[in-house]
Structure formats: C-alpha cells, structure tokens
C-alpha cells in the first residue's frame, strides 16, 4: 500500500522535473516529414538548376522576366527562393500541427513556459545565422551560405536540446559537422543540405518517433 504511494511520489517528481524544464511534446513524425520536404525541395532545386544550365537555349539562363528586371533577380533565383520558402512553410505548419496534437494527447500545453523557452533558445542562434547569411551574400561570399545555414541550425539544435527531447542535441552535432565539411566543397551546398536537413532529419525524427511515440 505505502510502497505504491512512494512509487507514485517518485514518478510525480520525475514528471514535474522534466515537464517544467523540457518541452516533451515535440513530434518526431514532424521531423521525418520535414526531412522528406527538404529532399523534395532539393530535388526540385537541382532539376531547375540543371534545366537552366543544360537547356538547349543556354541564353535562357540570362533571361530576366519583367518582374526580375525590376527587382534584380534572375528567374532561377526566384524559383529557388519559392522552393526554399515552400519547404520552410510546409515543415513549419506540419511541425505545429503534429506538435499540437501530441501536446493535447499528453495533456501538455502547447504554449507554456517550456515551449516558449525552447523557441527562444532555438530561435536566437538561428536568427543570428540568418542575418550572417545575408552578410555573406552582401559580401559576395554566397558559396558559404549553405555551410553556414547548416552550422547555425546545428548550433540552434544543440542550444535548444537542453529544453526538449535530448536527441535534438545529436541532430545538432551532426548538422554542425556536415556544415564544416561542406565549407571544403563549395558549389556542392545543395547535396550537403539534402544530407543534413533531409536525410538526418528523417533519421533522428524516426529515432524519436519509434522510441518515444510508439
């Protein structure tokens, strides 16, 4: 009888400690889907780039639409930007929906102290990385943009991992390493992106999903 009460007390203590310091409802499935979106995006980007580079009418790569003349973008750059933003949007929306569902199931609030803290600790390094990428483009060192996004994303994951599922830390380390390797292979950024954001999201997402949610 008493034994049970003590056991309950201990599990309540553990539950409160982790729930008050970590946001546990992050969905592994959303990681898998984000990785798949990233791979689709990378594939579309690659085929668009090939089309512009290898198309018989090679002058097309220099063709600027009316829109692009105004804003100074090439048609390819606009397409790539659209692809990138679609991937980010799809991944974010999926992440929010799946996390909301998981939070509801486990009785955790989606928007509470722990999720706010998680978002701040994830967002700050990411934002700084984003600004730094604009500087790289401004200084015309665009080749380093892909490695930089990977490295800062990795740092954001490592920083955020203290406040959510611990495996996010390893996703972070992996992306940092891939980013550093990518600095030595400028021009192949897309492949490293597909590996870091695509393959490893799927890998760690699946690890989280099958370990914690099944």
């Amino acid at each position: 009888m008493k034994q049970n009460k003590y056991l309950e007390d201990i599990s309540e203590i553990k539950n409160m400690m982790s729930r008050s310091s970590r946001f546990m409802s992050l969905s592994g499935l959303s990681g898998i889907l984000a990785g798949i979106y990233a791979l689709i995006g990378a594939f579309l980007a690659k085929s668009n780039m090939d089309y512009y580079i290898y198309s018989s009418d090679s002058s097309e790569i220099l063709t600027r639409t009316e829109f692009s003349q105004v804003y100074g973008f090439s048609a390819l750059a606009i397409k790539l930007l659209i692809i990138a933003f679609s991937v980010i949007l799809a991944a974010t929306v999926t992440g929010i929906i799946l996390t909301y569902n998981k939070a509801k199931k486990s009785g955790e609030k989606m928007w509470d102290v722990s999720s706010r803290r998680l978002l701040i600790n994830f967002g700050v390094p990411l934002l700084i990385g984003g600004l730094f990428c604009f500087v790289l483009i401004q200084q015309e060192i665009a080749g380093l943009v892909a490695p930089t996004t990977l490295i800062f994303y990795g740092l954001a994951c490592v920083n955020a991992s203290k406040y959510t599922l611990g495996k996010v830390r390893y996703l972070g380390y992996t992306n940092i390493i891939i980013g550093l390797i990518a600095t030595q292979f400028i021009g192949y950024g897309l492949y490293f992106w597909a590996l870091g954001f695509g393959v490893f999201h799927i890998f760690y997402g699946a690890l989280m999903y099958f370990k914690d949610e099944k």
Partner: protein
Amino acid sequence: MSLIDNINKAFDHRIRLGIMSILMVNDYADFKMLKEMLGATDGNLASHTKALEKEDYIKVEKQFIGRKPNTRYSATPLGKAAFTKHINALEKLIRK
C-alpha cells in the same frame, strides 16, 4: 532509527512535491508558472507555498513587472538539501 524518519512530512502532498520538483530544476518560477504546471487553484497553491516558506525551504520574492505584481519562488539551499534527502528516502523505501 527507521527509514521512515527520513521521509519529510513537509513534502507529504502532491502540490508541495510538485513545487519542490519544479524549483529543483529551475532557478526560479513565478506563481503563474507553478499554477499552470500543477493545475492548482490560487488559494490552494498559496497555502502550500506558505507552508514551504515557513520551513525556509523556498524563498519568496515579490516584485513589480511594470505595474503588475509578480511573485517569484526559488528553492533555498536548505530546501534543496531537504528535498534530496526526501527523494533518497523514497527510493530506499521502494527498493526494500
């Protein structure tokens, strides 16, 4: 001396157990956060924090954020030591 002696009566309630657990892993927590986490009513939570404060296990700081009063709680070193002892006692009793 039996093992039961290490079980601290001050922690013998779900809400107090929760308050101490939260304050062990967070530098501080305000009233609203404790309320959200523990799902307690204002009056209920206030009486339990008062009891822990009387034992010198938690420290209460009242301050203003802008014009709103804000009450912040943190665990004292004495409270942390007492709670650790309590957890150890619980674990020993379970293993018996």
